[in-house]
């Protein structure tokens, strides 16, 4: 296999319009992890060379595994490795071009540097000594910014104070001379407040550049200064704002810090917005919402199938009525979900012709299984020009609109339907349930676990119960052979037998006794308690067979752990509130996700 490097590859990659289907052979000169802060996967910076020049590139996170070193050895992608670049992206960051390696093939490692490459950036700078550092702003024909850029002589893409453009990712309270170039992806309404300390008004925006997002808030006088100036979707230079810790209860933007506009804050519109990306989405399928915990936020995209009427709800907190509208969306996972639009977003909502809408930052709730809530910090984009939207449109127009959809509140179908209420986020191993002392506190604890049935106590597996609806209390036999319910006062000829099982379950970490009730019993034995009771009396061997057949069956148990006082003994009891059969497809996917954490 030839390890010849492709000549002039660096200059080809670094062009403004890089060639398509270009697969040059390059040598890696170094691999280094860069600091990305406490969250997110590690990012690897790679120096690539074509033998003549070298330049920087970033490795896409899906290729991170290539840089893992086996004990003491060389990683697949390491110093001096020669690769063939299969797919790459080229982004412009702060007027510098950054190559991102999306897919590559490792060809080999000759163990030494090929050629004597020099830095591509330095060479380029030297040969363009007189070039203008900033690109000329492109002519704006369709939309003019609200205010013309101040100062006519210098190009509108350089900030006034001349400070370097900072990435939003790099902002912290330790920086004071910074300017960011960011797009307003969300602008809130002006809010007035009044409390013991006084009153005031504020508005917030979310600012985004290619490195991240940050929230910025303007108070009182700054509201007047900036509210009209800043518009959603437009790009601005922002500088001299105060950086402080983020107030998480008011925002779900993932940044440790947030900006407060002060008297000397400067905001300038920027005409050259070509290097600031549009809204970034990370879509979850509607089916996947089940695995997202309640109160988390996420992004979804779907086709609007139903738009409800505009209604009103009385808000208990403020005593005012809040407009509310519910819509239904579906996506290719075949699931439909209800989404609630509050306030102005509900009032002004229009969705003709079942459009595709992308939602960013909607909150997940568990009403009816799963529902979505459009908050003040959420965004929606109707029929966005992104590949996900086109795919959805194509799917819906061809087969999606006739497919039966599954929703989270649909009636349970044995084996497949219960998933909607099985909370994977509360999944624990039996060892964790015991170690974490669930149920031993003041309140009940809820958990779910996947375990196998080991044994069912054969004595008293059922009790005679009151036949009246909703009352499942035990009935006592009266002197004339009938059955009386103590709480209802009703008497029956025959009681309805209901399961009251003590089952021993185990997983790979431990064993526990659970108390299960009628629904669980019927799923376990596939017959009613009364029938099993009769079987015990009539056919002992068949009864034994049924009892032993349940052993080793694997289920998902949703449980409630609570302390109970029985006969002066306080013990933790684990009650099964819901038992569901495993849907292997979902379970497999969950296992794969867990495994990925170890790979």
């Amino acid at each position, binding site marked *: 296999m030839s390890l010849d490097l492709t000549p002039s590859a660096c200059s080809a990659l670094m062009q403004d319009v890089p060639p398509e289907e270009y697969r040059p052979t390059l040598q890696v000169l170094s691999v280094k992890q860069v600091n990305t802060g406490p969250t997110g996967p590690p990012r690897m910076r790679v120096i690539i060379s074509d033998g003549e020049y070298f330049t920087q590139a970033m490795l896409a996170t899906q290729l991170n595994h290539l840089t893992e070193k086996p004990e003491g050895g060389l990683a697949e992608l390491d110093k001096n490795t020669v690769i063939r670049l299969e797919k790459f992206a080229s982004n412009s960051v702060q007027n510098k071009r950054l190559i991102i390696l999306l897919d590559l093939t490792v060809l080999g490692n000759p163990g030494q540097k090929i050629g004597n490459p020099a830095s591509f950036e330095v060479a380029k700078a030297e040969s363009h000594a007189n070039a203008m550092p900033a690109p000329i702003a492109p002519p704006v024909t369709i939309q003019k910014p609200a205010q013309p850029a101040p100062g006519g002589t210098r190009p509108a893409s350089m900030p006034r104070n001349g400070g370097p453009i900072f990435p939003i990712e790099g902002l912290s309270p330790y920086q004071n001379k910074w300017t960011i170039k960011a797009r307003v992806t969300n602008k809130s309404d002006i809010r007035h407040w009044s409390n013991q300390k006084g009153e005031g008004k504020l508005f917030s925006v979310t600012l985004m550049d290619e490195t991240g997002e940050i929230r910025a808030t303007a108070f009182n006088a700054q509201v007047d200064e900036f509210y009209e100036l800043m518009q959603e979707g437009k790009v601005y230079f922002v500088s001299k704002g105060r950086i402080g810790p983020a107030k998480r209860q008011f925002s779900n933007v993932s940044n440790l810090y947030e900006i407060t506009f002060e008297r000397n804050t400067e905001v300038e519109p920027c005409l050259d917005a070509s290097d600031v990306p549009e809204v970034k989405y990370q879509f979850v399928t509607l089916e996947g919402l089940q695995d997202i915990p309640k109160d988390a936020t996420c992004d979804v995209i779907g086709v609007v199938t139903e738009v409800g009427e505009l209604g009103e709800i009385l808000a208990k907190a403020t005593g005012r009525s809040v407009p509310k509208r519910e819509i239904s969306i579906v996506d290719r996972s075949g699931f439909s979900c209800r989404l609630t639009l509050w306030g102005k977003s509900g009032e002004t909502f229009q969705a003709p012709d079942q459009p595709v809408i992308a939602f960013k930052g909607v909150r997940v709730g568990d009403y009816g299984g799963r529902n979505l809530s459009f908050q003040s910090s959420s965004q929606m984009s109707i029929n966005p020009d992104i590949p996900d939207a086109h795919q959805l449109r194509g799917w819906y127009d061809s087969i999606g609109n006739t497919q039966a959809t599954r929703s989270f509140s649909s009636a349970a179908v044995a084996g497949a339907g219960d998933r909607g209420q099985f909370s994977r986020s509360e999944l624990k191993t039996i060892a964790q349930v015991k170690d974490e002392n669930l149920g031993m506190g003041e309140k009940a604890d809820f958990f779910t676990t996947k375990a196998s049935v080991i044994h069912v106590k054969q004595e008293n597996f059922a009790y005679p119960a009151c036949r009246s609806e909703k009352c499942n209390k035990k009935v006592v036999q009266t002197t004339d052979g009938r059955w009386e319910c103590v709480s209802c006062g009703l008497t029956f000829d025959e009681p309805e037998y209901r399961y009251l099982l003590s089952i021993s379950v185990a997983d790979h970490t431990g064993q526990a006794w659970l108390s299960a009730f009628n629904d669980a019993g019927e799923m376990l034995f596939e017959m009613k308690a009364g029938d099993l009771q009769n079987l015990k009396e009539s056919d002992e061997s068949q009864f034994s067979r049924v009892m032993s057949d349940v052993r080793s069956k694997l289920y998902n148990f949703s449980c409630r752990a609570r302390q109970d006082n029985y006969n002066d003994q306080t013990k933790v009891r684990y009650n099964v509130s819901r038992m569901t059969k495993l849907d292997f*497809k979902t379970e*497999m*996917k969950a296992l*794969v996700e867990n*495994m990925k954490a170890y*790979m």
Partner: protein
Amino acid sequence: MDRPTPRINSKRMQYYVGQVVRMTGKMLRVNGDTAIIESTDGGQVEVRLSRDSHLSDDFVEIIGNVEDPHTLKMLAGCDMGPDLDMQTWDTMIEMMHKFPHIFMDPEQARLL
């Protein structure tokens, strides 16, 4: 049957020519004594069926000898039901090759 049979997908066929492998996939069509299956990674493979093959389900697993990178000579096979998550199965195959000492002779694995 003295060696374990590695599970592979279509893109690995070229590395196992002359060896016995297991491939799971979706039956696309059957023509007499040949069948075309779609492997878990989407690639199509031709299977020369054994005389006594009686596969009827949509998803099957074939144990066979790799004749060339696109053809498998079936030695045995079994039905895998009407529904199989091909994507997760393919992920499993990749994981098996990544941690081969549990699933096969480590030298049989091919990490691509």
